[in-house]
């Protein structure tokens, strides 16, 4: 009952004019920043940090929370419209969202994505408001071996999206992990695969690889084909999503939301493994799983819901334990500390109004996101009517700027272009690029957690199997692999018979 009263108070505070406008502004900044490849909402949050100096502590959290919620969704706009994920977590949106755009259903895809994201985020915010305490005590049981196991689960989930090519998918994934090892290692401080190039010692950033592999190949194909990405119109109106479309994917959204909430509360796991795991599971569960990758609504809705369901869940360890689980929540922690606020159990006792205003803001932001998302998506959808050559030229320029902006370094532009050529070549010969990108994103995390686990537990590799949570997650990973490979194995057996 106390939680309801406190949340009511939080809503009253969040609906004050300036507080509400702060949420709306943050949300719009987040959606636009997320939609621009290479800019990312995390950069937008970092750039917004100085502006929070002049705000009240609660208002600063509302602003950053708005950017966070909007930005996690925003990445899917460019993923769906031009096949370039604005954020790593939007990668699965390219698999089924972009094929819908190619069919002229950009508006429908965007509406499904924003609705799924908003529902996922909303449920997650409610979980944050009412179940913080038990979830926090569970998250506290996680240590390096559990983080490693969770990251490994994210990595192996790529098997589920490998059609009939698990071997090639694994080669691509491992190649991505190897690319992720370039630069100084996380524990010993020694540079690897730098080949005497100083810039290589700083490593290859996943954003640069992602932009290169996806954007450049796609733009070159736009130039070389007669492909028309303009929304198809029926009776003078672009094809949008109907209520039926949303009802069709209700279970996909529910599953995605559940997975996102669980993955999100694990510090360090974040939205990307959540979205990829949700896609992999949905592919296995859905009746149309075999058609995934060709523009199936469920394949878009599940990862979208999971992605935003991690936002509220990721706030649980931040607010209850003071542990930031991602770069975005680390910036929020920095903003709180700048204002002299220390998150943790005491915050709930010392300043419950602030805590519940943040909870209320997360709920409001997710509801508003439907309107903001549809508005921004409509704007971006209109941009798709631009002649393809103009669109392609600007995609390249934005991609190059995005790669440059990662570290303000021209070397990253060269790396991006190299991966662009590679990505185009991979596409031409049918070698999958998505596992490679996933390897570059999650590989460094997996390595860091693996090495620190080994160092913390006296190089005893059995620690991953003797700790109950770690062993359970690894068991789930194994089940997941077997489950995903079952159709291929059955096919081989059938052919033999």
């Amino acid at each position, binding site marked *: 009952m106390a939680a309801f009263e406190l949340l009511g108070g939080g809503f009253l505070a969040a609906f004050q004019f300036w507080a509400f406008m702060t949420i709306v502004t943050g949300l719009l900044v987040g959606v636009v920043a997320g939609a621009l490849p290479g800019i990312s909402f995390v950069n937008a949050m970092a750039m917004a940090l100085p502006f929070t100096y002049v705000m009240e502590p609660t208002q600063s959290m509302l602003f950053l929370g708005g950017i966070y919620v909007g930005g996690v969704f925003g990445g899917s706009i460019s993923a769906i419209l031009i096949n370039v994920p604005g954020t790593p977590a939007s990668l699965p949106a390219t698999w089924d969202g972009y094929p819908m755009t190619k069919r002229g259903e950009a508006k429908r895809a965007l509406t499904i994505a924003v609705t799924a994201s908003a529902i996922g985020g909303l449920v997650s915010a409610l979980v944050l408001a009412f179940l913080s305490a038990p979830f926090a005590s569970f998250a506290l049981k996680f240590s390096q071996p559990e983080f490693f196991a969770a990251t490994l689960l994210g990595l192996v989930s790529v098997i589920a999206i490998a059609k009939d090519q698990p071997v*090639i998918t694994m080669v691509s994934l491992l190649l991505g992990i190897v690319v992720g090892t370039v630069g100084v290692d996380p524990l010993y401080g020694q540079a690897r*695969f730098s080949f005497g190039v100083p810039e290589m010692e700083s490593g290859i950033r996943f954003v640069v690889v992602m932009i290169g592999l996806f954007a450049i190949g796609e733009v070159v194909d736009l130039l070389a084909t007669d492909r028309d990405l303009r929304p198809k119109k029926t009776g003078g109106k672009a094809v949008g999503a109907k209520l039926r479309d949303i009802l069709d994917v209700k279970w996909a959204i529910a599953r995605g939301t559940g997975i996102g909430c669980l993955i999100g509360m694990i510090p360090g796991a974040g939205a990307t493994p959540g979205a990829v795991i949700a896609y992999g599971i949905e592919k296995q569960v859905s009746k149309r799983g075999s058609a995934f990758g060709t523009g199936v609504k469920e394949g878009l809705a599940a990862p979208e819901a999971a992605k935003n369901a991690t936002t509220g869940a990721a706030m649980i360890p931040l607010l209850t334990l003071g542990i930031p689980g991602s770069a975005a929540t680390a910036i929020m922690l920095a903003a709180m500390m700048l204002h002299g606020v220390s998150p943790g159990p005491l915050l709930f006792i010392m300043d419950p109004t602030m805590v519940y205003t943040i909870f209320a803001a997360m709920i409001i932001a997710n509801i508003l996101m439907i309107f903001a998302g549809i508005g921004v998506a409509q704007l971006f959808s209109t941009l798709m009517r631009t002649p393809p050559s103009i669109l392609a030229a600007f995609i390249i320029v934005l991609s*190059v700027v995005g790669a440059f902006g990662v570290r303000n370094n021209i070397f990253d532009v060269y790396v991006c272009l190299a991966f662009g050529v590679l990505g185009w070549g991979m596409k031409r010969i049918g070698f999958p690029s998505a596992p490679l990108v996933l390897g570059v994103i999650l590989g460094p995390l997996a390595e860091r957690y693996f090495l620190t686990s080994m160092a913390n537990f006296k190089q005893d590799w059995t620690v991953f199997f003797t700790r109950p949570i770690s062993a359970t997650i690894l068991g789930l990973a194994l089940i997941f692999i077997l489950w995903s490979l079952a159709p291929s194995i059955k096919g081989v057996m059938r052919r033999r018979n």
Partner: protein
Amino acid sequence: MATASDSDPVRRTSRTGRSIPPGPAAILPTLLPAGLLLMALVLPRFMFQSDQTASKIGLGPAAWPDAMLLGMAVFCVLWIVRDVWALGATNRKPTLSIPIEDGHYDFGKAIVGLIMIISYGWSLPILGFAVSTSVFIMIWCLFGGLRNLLVVIPVTMIGTIALLWLFMGLALMPLPRGFGPFDDFSIWLLRATGIY
């Protein structure tokens, strides 16, 4: 693998444009696993620079990449074995098959497009963002079939200035200004647009 790019049915032959040369197209998927296997076996030797030695404490910095390269080598061997097996069977196809293009794909145009993109990236530090971007947008639009200069020139000019304002003015990104006269021109343009 169900990437958006891979999922669309693509036919390699082209109705009006130049198609992928059949020789390299057929050889590449066959050579790829062998090339990747070779890379996985050779790369560990080049992990550290010649004047460095891997730390001996714990697993060391080479352990993880070594394990990943070993895994990659194993999967490449599986890939090769499967392809060799497929060669012997009549109704089997190689693991990697070139996607089939649905309609027109002008391979020559794609190569020119790639060269243009690489040239753009290469020219950025020399000509500066403003000049190289405007030249790139204009050439790309003309090459892409948009021949109306009344559209191309305003799009180039307004687009470049809008990007400059957004990234150098608003996001304070230190985009390249170029060398010598191009640097002077970039500074003049940035002052003229009120960014500096």
